[in-house]
């Protein structure tokens, strides 16, 4: 059965006008229609925060739960009912501060969840405090003199937790977002999608360098498995390996040709270069990498749980409660 975005829509979103969540929601509806899983077979599970309101605007099954626990709740949901497609929606506070423990363990276990991290580098719902992704020195209501702590970088955390899938998109970039969401769905295992989105009220311009199409062309690189890592308005720049790091080169200059440019390998098990790509663009002169940065197949937790149950069922001779009782030392008392 073919679906349209309309089939996944419900209600009237209550986010501020211009909020990145509006863009992301529309892209998620679109991606779900293209993916084609029936709304009855989807669970969308969020924590607490602006972005965690999202399930209320879905015509699927879902839960808008408690702060930070979405990944844990989604874990139980997926393991108990592996036939469901489970999307987990969190913001940077929900997913990486209060929910940081669940985030890393869902990645480590490799549960087949599509984990969306809507990153606006601020606490919006509580009206403007710094988040674990806010840059050092960030001035907010709770840090009037600037923060004195370093932020997490979601990709680094995901890779550190042995994550097998990491993608990044900008909320306003419909094709880019739909593409990573579809890839996250196709990937079996925990798939982290970092969505860069703007908070118009408390952190306006936080992703300004990539937020509109024009800026993106200058400041972002779209990575695609098997394609050379080139960027720029006319694809005039490329990435090459330089010692332990990466270097930007201009194609056609100093004898550099397309042959010299690195070809993206999202499927490479060793995440060293993928991490380098994911870490680019934080004021280091490199472009921000968008697209599927890492996508490596690995056994999923939920499949392994099911397989082990089947394996033990085949090994053991008891398959009902009555048969279980008989496995004990039993004695008989006669009158």
């Amino acid at each position, binding site marked *: 059965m073919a679906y349209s975005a309309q089939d996944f829509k419900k209600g009237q979103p209550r986010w501020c006008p211009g909020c990145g969540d509006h863009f992301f929601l529309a892209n998620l509806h679109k991606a779900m229609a293209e993916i084609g899983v029936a709304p009855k077979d989807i*669970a969308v599970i969020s924590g607490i925060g602006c972005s965690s309101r999202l399930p209320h605007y879905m015509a699927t099954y879902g839960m808008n739960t408690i702060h930070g626990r979405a990944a844990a709740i*989604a*874990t139980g949901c997926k*393991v*108990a009912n592996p036939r469901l497609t489970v999307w987990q929606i969190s913001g940077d506070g929900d997913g990486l501060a209060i929910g940081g423990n669940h985030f890393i363990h869902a990645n480590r276990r490799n549960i087949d969840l599509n984990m969306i991290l809507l990153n606006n580098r601020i606490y919006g719902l509580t009206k403007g405090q710094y988040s674990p992704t806010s840059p050092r020195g960030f001035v907010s209501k709770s840090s009037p003199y600037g923060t004195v702590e370093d932020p997490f970088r979601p990709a680094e955390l995901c890779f550190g937790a042995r994550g097998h899938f990491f993608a990044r998109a900008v909320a306003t970039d419909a094709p880019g977002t739909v593409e990573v969401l579809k890839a996250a769905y196709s990937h079996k295992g925990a798939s982290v999608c970092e969505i860069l989105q703007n908070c118009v009220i408390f952190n306006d311009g936080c992703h300004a360098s990539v937020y509109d199409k024009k800026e993106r062309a200058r400041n972002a690189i779209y990575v695609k498995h098997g394609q050379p890592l080139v960027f720029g308005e006319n694809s005039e720049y490329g990435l090459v390996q330089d010692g332990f790091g990466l270097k930007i080169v201009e194609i056609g200059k100093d004898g550099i040709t397309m042959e010299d440019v690195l070809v993206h390998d999202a499927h490479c098990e060793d995440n060293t270069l993928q991490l380098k790509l994911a870490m680019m663009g934080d004021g280091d002169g490199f472009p921000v990498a968008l697209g599927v940065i890492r996508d490596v197949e690995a056994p999923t937790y939920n499949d392994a749980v099911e397989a082990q149950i089947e394996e033990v069922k085949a090994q053991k001779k008891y398959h009902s409660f009555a048969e279980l009782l008989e496995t004990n*030392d039993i004695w008989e008392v006669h009158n």
Partner: protein
Amino acid sequence: MNIEELSEVVVRFSGDSGDGMQLAGNIFSTISATVGNSISTFPDYPADIRAPQGSLTGVSGFQVHIGADKVYTPGDLCDVLVAMNAAALKTQLKYAKSNATVIIDTDSFGPKDLEKAQFQSEDYLGEMCIDPDRVISCPLTTMVKDCLADTGMDNKAVMKCRNMFALGLVCWLFDRDLNIAFNFLREKFARKPNIAEANIKVIQAGYDYGHNTHSSAHNVYRIETKEKVAGRYMDITGNKATAYGFIAAAEKAGLKLYLGSYPITPATDVLHELSKHKSLGVTTVQCEDEIAGCASSLGASFAGALAVTSTSGPGICLKSEAMNLAVIMELPLVVLDVQRGGPATGLPTKSEQTDLLQVLFGRNGDSPMPVMAALSPTDCFDAAYEASKIALEHMTPVVLLTDAYIANGSGAFKLPDLKEYPAINPPYVPEEMKGTWTPYMRKEDGTRYWAVPGREGFEHILGGLEKDDKTGAISTNPENHDLMTRKRQAKIDAIPVPDIVVEGDKDDADLLIVGFGGTYGHLRAAMDQMRNDGKKVALAQFRYINPLPANAAEVLTKYPHVVVAEQNMGQLAGWLRMKVDGFCPAQYNEVKGQPFKVADLVKAFNTIINK
């Protein structure tokens, strides 16, 4: 040599935590139960992870009470104390009657052993004021070594068999049939027949030692069973019975059983037990923390499983937020709290009833939740089954309280026949409601319907924000919140629970003893003893705590004297005072981490009845 007929006897095996006292005690109780004696056991573990060998903190005990009639407790003080080393004698003698027989391994009472056990001299019996006539002194280690000399076993393996010598000696003392022990060991060590045979050889040697040197003991005892309930039995601990109850409930309801848990003493054995039974489709997830244990269970519940999370008091602190989410989302969930000593880390291996008010009230908002408490190791089965039934049929989280004492203790469990258990029928939303159904529509009893993902036409969103009664959408309407709060409360209040049964002199008691959960055995034994002494006494032991049985107020206000006895500072008494107008009981409170002592209870209750 006399053969004396006893109606009951209490044996306590004690030794270093590596001495295998739990196994020896287990086998002895199984042998006794097999011949039809009533049994009740209590393992007493040291809190230290692995205290130095021979030290006072490393002593582990296992007490078993066997009786010709029904026994309700592992017994206050033992008639026979086995002390495998000096530290065991030093720390465990206080659990022995003044005329108890003491069995010691003299090989473990050397100068170093005595020093570690903080004896001042070599006259350890004198220091402890033990009459040498009561003592069976036996060079146990030497004899085990001699017995196994020709097996080629290394010293470490030989030393592991010492417990079986003590067991053999006790079996002789109580005229027990060794074949049952032999069968037990052959089954336990089926893959290591050499070990099984070595153990069997040592048991026989212990038995023969007793037989050949019986001059050192006054009597050999027999406990003949008076009333037998025919049937097939197994020995079961409370934690295992709890796990079995969940398995049975899931099978009856036709649901997958999901346990999300995090290891915590004394609840971990439930996780261990359920993890074994994948052949029954049981799914266990050892989560990253207590919070995820509860949260993932709630996710599994949403997805349509019988969801359980198991923990002890400190875990409840962490789970309370997700438990509260289950309250407002009205999803089934069973939260097992195997209570231990608190606050904070408290006494991890010891028993208390101090979580009652936490599970009743420890959440933000008006957050009513059914609470049950199991009465005994074997009752854990029925209690787990019933807690699951209430959760599934009333769409609510349910707390099941047990405690370290009944969780680790065991009793003879008559094998249940699931056919005799009531059906479990979750309120699945009927197909014909498609198109008109909203998430908070309720059945007549106030329970909302369950729409499990996968059903077309029933897609819906639940959550922690208050919802509109009619549409299920987020609502901050003050009238609606008031209405929803009342509906959640009314739903719990309307859960039917059986009337509380008053035992003993229910018509004319001068004193009503009131308790809840795992203290049942001790309170029952205290009542029995007082009635034997000619007093008019009754007992009301609460199993259902929220909602209270409909006849609770009537029972509690019927008798001239009432005492609420509990292992906390008065939590049940406070709850009952809140729920029953004019209820003003006497209290008996004790938080020593150990089970009540029947003698202490009787003494205290006599003071109350004589007022």
